């Protein structure tokens, strides 16, 4: 049995969980290629033109997997509990793919904690559909969950070490499916690195902690993915030099949340970058370059002030 994983959207959040689970069940896995122009073009062709960029890319990935595997995994996510919902786009991916493509074989599970559909239940159902027993799927799920937690912890530990460095640190507040996408986010982080900056990823922060801290920026926010991101701003506020809000056109939750961040968190220099499918690289690079120049100037100024104070003390 071959399971296809589209390398878009929730893949970046659940990569280890999915891969371990299906491996434990004895399934083969194929992952779609990194996003490229062809995938994007296919995605645009098969989606409504007003959909957001990541969802178009997602459709491209799904299309590229058709015919190459027995099942394509598309989860449906609604809520992780009270006041912890997700963007409604995640509610509909299953039905959109099902209605857009003919002869597509989708493997789906649903997370809707408010309606009693927990993740574990969904995975066990999925296991049953693949012809595995209840216990086999349960054990596989538990193992996968552990592996995912371990990998998350490792990544956040690695990032914590990096935070001690002296380079200019820029917090990238953006959904993982934008940050790590080969076509949208990756060139930006690479460019920052090239200019001598250090990108810090908001989505790698310990999720439980950031969920709690998110209340300090917004008390009525109910999108869990956005909560985790804005919590990271509060957690790292003193350790970073600037914030890059990276979002895709026309992302619903980000359109409101980023506005709030810009209005509320005035301590650090912030830039709001909106990417769409017609992106030219030059314009983006200029913006990032000038943003980093501004931060560098701020840092230099601070250093000069510090130097002055030290000199004064010496004289005294």
């Amino acid at each position: 049995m071959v399971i296809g994983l589209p390398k878009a959207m929730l893949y970046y959040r659940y990569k280890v969980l999915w891969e371990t689970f299906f491996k434990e069940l004895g399934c083969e896995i194929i992952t779609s290629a990194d996003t490229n122009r062809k995938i994007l073009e296919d995605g645009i062709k098969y989606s409504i033109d007003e959909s957001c960029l990541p969802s178009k890319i997602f459709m491209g990935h799904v299309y590229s997997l058709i015919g190459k595997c027995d099942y394509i995994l598309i989860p449906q996510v609604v809520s992780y509990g009270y006041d912890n919902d997700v963007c409604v786009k995640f509610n509909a991916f299953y039905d959109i793919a099902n209605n857009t493509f003919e002869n597509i074989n989708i493997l789906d599970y649903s997370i809707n904690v408010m309606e009693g559909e927990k993740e574990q239940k969904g995975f066990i159902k999925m296991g049953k559909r693949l012809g595995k027993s209840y216990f086999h799927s349960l054990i596989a799920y538990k193992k996968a969950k552990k592996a995912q937690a371990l990998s998350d912890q490792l990544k956040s530990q690695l990032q914590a070490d990096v935070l001690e460095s002296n380079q200019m640190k820029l917090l990238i507040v953006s959904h993982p499916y934008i940050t790590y996408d080969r076509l949208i986010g990756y060139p930006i982080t690479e460019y920052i690195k090239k200019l001598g900056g250090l990108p810090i990823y908001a989505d790698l922060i310990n999720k439980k902690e950031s969920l709690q801290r998110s209340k300090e920026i917004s008390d009525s926010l109910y999108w869990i993915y956005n909560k985790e991101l804005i919590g990271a701003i509060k957690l790292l506020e003193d350790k970073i030099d600037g914030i890059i809000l990276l979002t895709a056109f026309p992302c619903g939750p980000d359109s409101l949340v980023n506005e709030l961040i810009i209005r509320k968190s005035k301590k650090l220099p912030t830039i709001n970058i909106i990417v769409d499918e017609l992106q030219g690289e030059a314009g983006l690079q200029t913006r990032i370059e000038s943003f980093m120049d501004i931060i560098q100037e701020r840092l230099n100024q601070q250093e000069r002030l510090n130097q002055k104070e030290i000199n004064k003390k010496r004289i005294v």
Partner: protein
Amino acid sequence: MQKIISFPHIGNYYVPIETLLKLLFKDHTVISAPKITKRTLELGTKYSPDFVCVPFKYNLGNYIEALENGANILIQACGGCRYGYYAEIQEQILKDLGYQFEFIKITWGKFNPFEVYNLCKKIGTSLSFPKFIHYVLLTLKMIKVMDSFESYIRENIGFEMKKNSFETIHKQFLNELKHIHSFRQLNKLYIKYNQKLKKVKINKPNNCLKIGIVGELYSLMEPFCNFFIEKELAENNIQVSRFITVTFLLKKSRIEKKILKSAKKYLKYAIGADGTDSVEKGQMLAEDGYDGIIHIKPFGCTPEVNAMPMLQKISNDYKIPILFFSFDSQTSETGIKTRLEAFYDMILMRKEQERCKQLI
């Protein structure tokens, strides 16, 4: 300080809402925001985030105009998709603009009678809880009556013998609705206007063109937002049906599973906010033999964009034309009118063709 309460517009529902607030807060003043004009939208757009959906801009414009008129308590109800998060951002934007006011948010989690009563107490109502419930029920009934009248008018206004007869009655009705204080008065009003409406002479052919409108609730219910699309259609002698009303939304939570079940050919899961309804109603309209469907939404409305692939499939399966509109602050009226006219011509020709086939 005297409290002046205000709230944003949506269609004609400002009448029952204003009546309710006036009954609840007898010691305070209640003003509805000034009617939506181009200025409202311009004000709202100026201070809104870039690609937020257009109801946000209308609401914000309403608030600014209400604040200019002296309001100092603003009410926003939330729930559903992005709409649930409007309140916090709008409050922040208005505060940054320098207005002094209190913002009352009725969030989804607090949408039970006790919480709402507590909120009202905070603003300052002198009513007891049973009385409060009584007035809320009265308002719900008012909305129900209003919706039933409006849906009758919508289906028949294109065929009235004497121009403007429906509109005059509707205006009178809304004016009288403002002075209702009890169920008995409301019943009387209902009987009176029901007779009046039924008396209006209409000339409706049996095979008239029928169009159903589905889509996002705000752009459906606020005629200014959809450039009076229903009126435009009625002028071309078309019977217009729409199901998304406040009455429907209020009972929706009870029949959500049923809706999903009847749309199971296209949907396995609920696709968020009103998307599920759009698909279900679209399928229903196609099965009922309507001549066309118009789907309207604000630009970037995620639930409705979710519903569009299914609607396109319905259009293919049932061979029914669907016209998609999306509205933003920049949409031009001429563009909409041209598209609407072309659509109308097309379904008219289709109908002619079908009749010719039958004759042969």
